[in-house]
């Protein structure tokens, strides 16, 4: 059986198969796979006995439930007002320059995806970004280069993931 189907079945066993369990299941798939493929969404629909369109409609409503293939590390940089005022663009340019991708793109080796997001709630330590679930604040171009280098080394060290 397809590993995603297994994952979905396990998640449904764990959370339940009612409509109100849909979001935790979608989140569980995204946590593992980083995104929801059409296959995942139809599998979830089958598992929960829901119309696939309902699953698709719900999944695409939420900005953290990606439905496009994503890299292993998703960088979400905050673009709301205070972060913009405190130099978000310079930080973004530094990331784009280092990873050689633009906002919305994924590095060819599938390691990083770069996105912008709305207020992360760290306005007092702007600019801020998330890499997967980890927060980084008070960013500068220098600092963000250091952070990304650490992640690149991580990638080199582990092959299992």
């Amino acid at each position, binding site marked *: 059986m397809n590993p995603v189907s297994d994952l979905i079945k396990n998640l449904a066993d764990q959370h339940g198969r009612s409509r109100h369990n849909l979001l935790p299941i979608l989140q569980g798939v995204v946590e593992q796979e980083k995104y929801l493929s059409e296959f995942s969404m139809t599998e979830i629909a089958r598992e929960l006995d829901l119309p696939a369109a309902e699953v698709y409609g719900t999944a695409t409503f939420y900005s953290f439930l990606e439905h496009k293939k994503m890299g292993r590390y998703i960088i979400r940089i905050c673009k709301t007002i205070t972060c913009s005022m405190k130099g978000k663009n310079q930080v973004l340019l530094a990331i784009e320059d280092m990873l050689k991708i633009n906002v919305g793109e994924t590095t060819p080796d599938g390691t990083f995806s770069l996105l912008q997001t709305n207020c992360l*709630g760290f306005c007092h330590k702007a600019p801020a970004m998330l890499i997967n679930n980890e927060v980084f604040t008070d960013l500068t171009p220098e600092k963000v280069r250091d952070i990304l280098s650490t992640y690149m080394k991580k990638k080199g060290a582990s092959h299992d993931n």
Partner: protein
Amino acid sequence: MTTSYQLKRVDFIFKNENDWEDVLSKSISKPPQELINELISSELKGRGGAGFPTGLKWKLSSEAVDDTKYVICNADEGEPGTFKDREILSRVPFKVLTAMAVCGHVIGSKEGYIYLRGEYFFLQPELNKAISEFEYYCKEINLDFKIRIFMGSGAYICGEETALFESMEGKRGEPRNKPPYPSSYGYMGKPTVINNVETLAHTFTIFKYGAKRFYDLGVQYSRGSKLFSVSGDTPKPGIYELELGMSLADFVDEFGDGDTKAVQVGGASGFLVPRKRFNETAIGFQGKLTGISLPTGGSMMLFNSSRSMFNVIDNYLEFFREESCGQCTPCRVGCQQLLSGIKAVKRGEKNAQYLDKLMRLAETMQYTAKCGLGQSVANSFSSIVENFREEMIY
């Protein structure tokens, strides 16, 4: 800039929570009516921004007849410029958990949820640890109350209470029509109390010290203290607990950088106050009736004279356009049109009078949009365009 009122720092929210077991066991030994009266006489109003009287909310849900009821803590803190709820949940989680259990006792509910925004996923392990410790104590004192975390997935609109229920039910986070209100028809169609994180933390203070300690703070209609999230052009960004009713002039004296041009009170959905109005503006819940007292969820963003107000409103509108849930036309199309409208004026493709048309559109949204998101776009739009018209054009 001299006014009689001074900024008063308060320290209730983050004060130690070590006695939560005491507060919990004492509170649940009291009859629900007594606790409701205590809350009503404290005049605590919701701290998420809307300012609904908390005591009344609990009372309405306690009167609803149903075997299943829910207590929900709204931690979907998405308003730009707000970051207090995360701080409460990480520094004094037991206050919030205690308040939820007391609420459960008051309304007759055995289940509580914390709806935590996806951006705060990293809080989950610590919070879960606190919850297990809390539930362990509940078992000891024979209190049947369970709390679970429900994670959001990055949608601002889910902070709206009925959208939050929809989201928890596994649907798109689209606000419902009101009435029916959550007190009778909330999560899963059951009577539900839904409170902001900070509101719950304040009820802890009230149960611990009594309503009077809380009521004695603040001014008429705006009792108690409130956390303010201060950011932008300020030498001391951060979270501060202050008495309500302060004048904006005093606030700017304390937190400004000496060159403050305007303050956005209440985040992107709030109002922009220009320098000339600092003296006559107070921060509280009196509402728009007098035009001088602004309610707020606690977001205070300062802008100095190096900032272009066009960039500010442009940023807000982009935010709203993305976060609009899209189910009602005034909000979905309105946000798009306001955004492309101000850009067209800036580029000179439309003349300056076009701004008046946009103002009328914003006003229409205020009357016709289904929920608070669409209705409040006009707050920042009108206050910015009115006060900084020349910056929109040139």
